[in-house]
């Protein structure tokens, strides 16, 4: 009888812990300030295969790799877009040579 009583309490304890663990993020999101992510993992479940999913995969694999990828993408895009927009502005027919500095 005493053992049965103990098991009931143990079950209730586990259930309470589980419900707390499941509800905590929702409670955190619901009350007070906005919730921040508890674990830094990109959620790829709803993503179709493609660029977003690949980037999220790199993020989940290694932050170091993700850091290098970030710099490479930003520098690469900066260079390509810089040269492309430069050409596009040149098409406006304006003089884009050196300018003199008048204050």
């Amino acid at each position, binding site marked *: 009888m005493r053992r049965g009583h103990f098991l009931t309490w143990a079950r209730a304890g586990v259930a309470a812990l589980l419900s707390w663990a499941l509800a905590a993020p929702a409670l955190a999101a619901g009350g007070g300030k906005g919730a921040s992510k508890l674990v*830094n993992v*990109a959620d*790829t479940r709803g993503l179709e295969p493609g660029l977003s999913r690949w980037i999220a995969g790199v993020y989940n694999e290694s932050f170091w790799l*993700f850091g290098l990828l970030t710099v490479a993408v*930003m*520098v690469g895009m900066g260079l390509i877009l*810089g040269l492309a927009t430069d050409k596009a502005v040149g098409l406006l027919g304006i003089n884009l040579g050196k300018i003199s*500095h008048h204050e």
Partner: protein
Amino acid sequence: MELFEIYLPVAGIHFNVLVLLLIGFTVGVCGGFFGIGGAWIVTPALNIFGFPMPYAIGTDLAHIGGKSIVSTIRHGKFGNVDVRLGVAMILGTTIGMELGANLVIKLEQMGLAEGLIRKMYIVFLGAIGSYVLYDYLTHTRRQRRVEAGLEVAPGGETVAQKLQRIKIPPMVHFQASGITCSMWLPVLVGLTTGIVAAVLGVGGGFIRMPALIYLIGCPTAVAVGTDLFEVMITGAYGAFTYGVKGRVELIAAMWMLFAAAIGAQLGTVAIKYVRGYAIRLLFAITIFVACSSVVLKQLEFQLASAITILVAGIGISLVIIAWLVKGIVDERGGRLPANHA
């Protein structure tokens, strides 16, 4: 509008692409024109639209690196980038930022960091904005007297000219800026602005651009271009360090950079049609807006602060684009702009 919603897996949120493009374009125009990174617009703007703050900062820094490359390429072709000066400044800035970060930790340990830094930021921005505005008004008054044929008292030696006279070897000639001074001057100015930027928690463009004009003596357009060269380096480092910490939403940064590249090109080309003092006037106004947004933040009006910044950023970008369009129309109509060599 749901059509433009995308899922950002790193930040774990859904976000509207049009908002990213608008923020990117606005900061691109302002950054290319003033030679600043523009974190003061991007970070609060991303945050009010739902980005968690650490991701807003990291994503902002990442796209700043790419955007500054676009502006630096164009400024370089205009002859506005003094690479030697930029490298000397970077040396001082790096050491200064490290010293400043240590100072912040000390202030934190004393429990003074949060409130004190924000108040310092307000005072600092107010002082810079006031000085730039005072300089503009003095210059304009003098110009009017010259145009009216009235007698003008000779202007005294500027702070930059006094500092340039200090002859501590090695003396270096900075060709694009057209100045000769001790190598220590840009290093020390970089060091000081680096400390201030790190303590205030900003990228430093707001402080470095006027420092290049008033302490080193650069022409305004060269100050803008050289500062962007430095922002490009620090931005790339910021992208890496926040990336390694997992705080960059790369997809969002790519969308923003796409629009920022177009904006940066337009903002940079606008420099060609505007005199240095006009840039200074708009810069002073921008600083006052940034200052008032920090005051609102200090008074706990977070939303009003962010909206002020975003609306002002869009307004300032429109003014710059209007100047650009007027300049292009004038040039095509055969009325060459004053800034053209």
